[in-house]
């Protein structure tokens, strides 16, 4: 009994320790809590303190506005980590270093599709008051989120006459609150339908005869009956590809004005439902079965291999065709048409860099901005990336034949609907809501009505 009691009291003491520890932890937490609350107001001045850092930046600015930049490295973040993008940015940065060998630089790639990781790194660093000097960002509505934290680089635009030589649409997208705050590098065209020449020949479909989304559906039907190929390669591992396709159909069916009304929050829901129904017909009947598990590069490969007839993508898809080991050549194996119904339009996407206001390297920042606008930077980058320079005064024969054609369209068309899926047309909030609408109601099973409601609500926020 005594022994029992002994062990009993032993256990009790161990259990008491556990209990006490738990109690102490709670008290400790509470203590920390109050500590934190009292520290909290101190945190605000400490932010002021980092404002003090900004003050350092200011003093750096005063020293840097002179001809000699300081020793701090220019920090630039971008998202081109693989394939053609990596090759293009490698060329761009080495050109910059060649031209300005004395400037310390720190180019940092942040991987991830659709700038997702890059944007979150930038968001975190802006919130921590420690932004990079410059980062890759889609201009237009996308940069409204950075509000008053962007540098005004209007002087760079004016001194280098970029205001006259840059594509006016792109220039407009780089302005925020009346000043230039971004520098465009290249543009991707969005309203493309790339197709496999052999599959079209086998099916007996003349690409030139397809001139509307409903005509495209007819062509798909023929291809699916006449060949083993899937009419359209599509990737649905993220909602952006479908979002892109929906608005290609919208533009092709209802035209530029209806599209512009929609992004301005004044759209017609009935038109949206029609476009969604056409898209639904495509997705339900004419795409590859494994769409939900593949990325757009895999989908693109299906078209290149002849397992699919077409793919709707931005012209970054071209980056894969022009790779030396792609096994396909332009107009022999693959070819291009504007998405049916959008022949006289150039759906605009812009890759640009933007610049933070609170930086310790203001002189180098502007040197970088100036460099991005030069003809050589845009041409060399564009040729490698499969994108079109935005300077209007370049010699287009420096571009590859396919890009040269696109560049001529960019120079000559009148209608440039800005892309929704890549942030030009709508704010990040609205884009997120659009992706939610597609992700929840339009990634199988398809609900055109509910998706239309979601898309309408997204832009009217």
């Amino acid at each position: 009994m005594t022994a029992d009691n002994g062990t009993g009291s032993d256990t009790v003491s161990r259990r008491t320790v556990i209990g006490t520890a738990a109690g102490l932890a709670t008290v400790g937490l509470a203590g920390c809590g109050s500590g934190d609350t009292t520290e909290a107001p101190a945190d605000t001045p400490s932010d002021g303190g980092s404002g003090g850092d900004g003050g350092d930046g200011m003093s750096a600015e005063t020293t840097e506005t002179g001809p000699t930049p300081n020793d701090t490295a220019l920090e630039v973040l971008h998202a081109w980590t693989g394939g053609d993008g990596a090759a293009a940015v490698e060329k761009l940065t080495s050109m910059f270093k060649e031209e300005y060998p004395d400037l310390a630089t720190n180019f940092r790639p942040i991987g991830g599709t659709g700038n997702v990781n890059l944007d979150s790194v930038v968001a975190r660093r802006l919130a921590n008051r420690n932004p990079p000097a410059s980062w890759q960002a889609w201009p237009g509505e996308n940069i409204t989120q950075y509000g008053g934290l962007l540098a005004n680089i209007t002087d760079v635009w004016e001194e280098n006459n970029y205001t006259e030589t840059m594509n006016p649409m792109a220039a407009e997208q780089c302005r925020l609150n009346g000043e230039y705050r971004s520098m465009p590098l290249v543009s991707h065209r969005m309203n493309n339908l790339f197709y496999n020449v052999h599959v079209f020949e086998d099916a007996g479909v003349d690409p030139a005869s397809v001139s509307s989304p409903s005509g495209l559906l007819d062509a798909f039907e023929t291809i699916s009956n006449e060949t083993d190929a899937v009419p359209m390669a599509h990737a649905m591992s993220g909602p952006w590809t479908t979002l892109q396709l929906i608005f290609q159909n919208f533009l092709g069916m209802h035209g530029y004005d209806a599209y512009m009304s929609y992004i301005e929050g004044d759209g017609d829901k009935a038109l949206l439902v029609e476009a969604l129904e056409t898209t639904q017909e495509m997705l339900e009947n004419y795409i590859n079965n494994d769409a939900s598990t593949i990325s757009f590069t895999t989908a693109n490969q299906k078209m290149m291999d002849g397992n699919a007839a077409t793919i709707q993508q931005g012209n970054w898809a071209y980056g894969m065709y022009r790779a030396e080991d792609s096994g396909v050549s332009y107009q022999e194996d693959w070819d291009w048409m504007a998405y049916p119904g959008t022949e006289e339009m150039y759906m605009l996407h812009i890759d640009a860099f933007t610049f933070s206001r609170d930086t310790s390297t203001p002189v180098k920042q502007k040197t970088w901005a100036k460099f991005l606008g030069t003809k050589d930077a845009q041409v060399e980058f564009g040729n490698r990336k499969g994108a079109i320079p935005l300077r209007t005064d370049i010699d287009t024969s420096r571009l590859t034949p396919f890009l040269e054609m696109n560049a001529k369209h960019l120079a000559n068309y009148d209608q440039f609907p800005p892309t929704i899926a890549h942030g030009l047309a709508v704010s990040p909030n609205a884009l997120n809501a659009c992706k939610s609408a597609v992700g929840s109601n339009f990634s199988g099973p398809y609900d055109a009505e509910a998706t239309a409601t979601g898309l309408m609500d997204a832009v009217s926020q």
Partner: protein
Amino acid sequence: MAGSQDTAARSGVTAGHATGSDRRERLRQFWKSDFVRSSPYWAIPLAIMGLAVYGGIIWNFLISLTDYEGFLQPPDYGHLDFEMYARALGDPAVFSTGKNTFVLLLAFTTVSLVLGLFLAILLDRDLRQKNTVQTIYLLPMALSFVVTAQFWLWMYNYDNGLVNTIVGLFGLGPYNWIGDPQLVLGAVIFALIWQFSGYCMVVFLAGLQSIPTDQFEAARVDGASIIKTYWRIIIPQLKSASVSAAVVLMIFALKIFTFLYAMFGTYRPPKGTDVLATLMVRQAFNLQNWAYAAAIATILLTMALVVVAPYLYYQYRARAL
């Protein structure tokens, strides 16, 4: 007290000095105590962990009480309220992702534990090549989420994935495992179970092997069947093993974000797999709704605690802890 009087008597000085030297003596003894001398070994890790983990949790909670959003204004700690929680409770996205999180947490933990226990018992029955089998089951645990997520994505491919090939042998399917919102959560849970049931097996096996063989013998002598022996005698002794395994599994279930991101490469996984963690990341890093995201994070933490707490309490009551 006695000690201090001793010191005072020995030193033979005035009362005032006595208190002074008394204090010094106490201080000296304090500095020489095990508590202080061992402190570099426990206090530093405690401080780092306390600050990084609990400090983080508390700060997160504080942010969730503010209205912090965007980049321009720092959080205002002057006006704290539960507005973000009210907003979260009325948000259908929080409800649906919370449901997915809960289903995932529960299904993944339960099935992994049961499967791990089953495998451990099989191995404990003196299987040939026991070590090899053990390694084979444990190996997936050693792989990173990035690797397993990618190859399960291939396994679930509609056209040429292994899963559809296998179910096809039984005349079923093919199924659109990832594209069908009805199936995708199950598919993800299955992949996670595949990765972690081996870990449960090892934990249970260690527990099983610490049980003396005479208990089996005694049960056999008493005429108990194998199933009855395990059910009545052995499994009840594995409680502490199952607590530790369950806690580790739940932590991994909360880390599901990594798996989903590695699988789909986006903060917005397909419909049916959107969980609180992905919703939180989107709110924070896509939309800069810091306070709202912090509130979702707190809800997620509370949910985990709610799932774990009754079990821990039960264990404590049963004196297993």
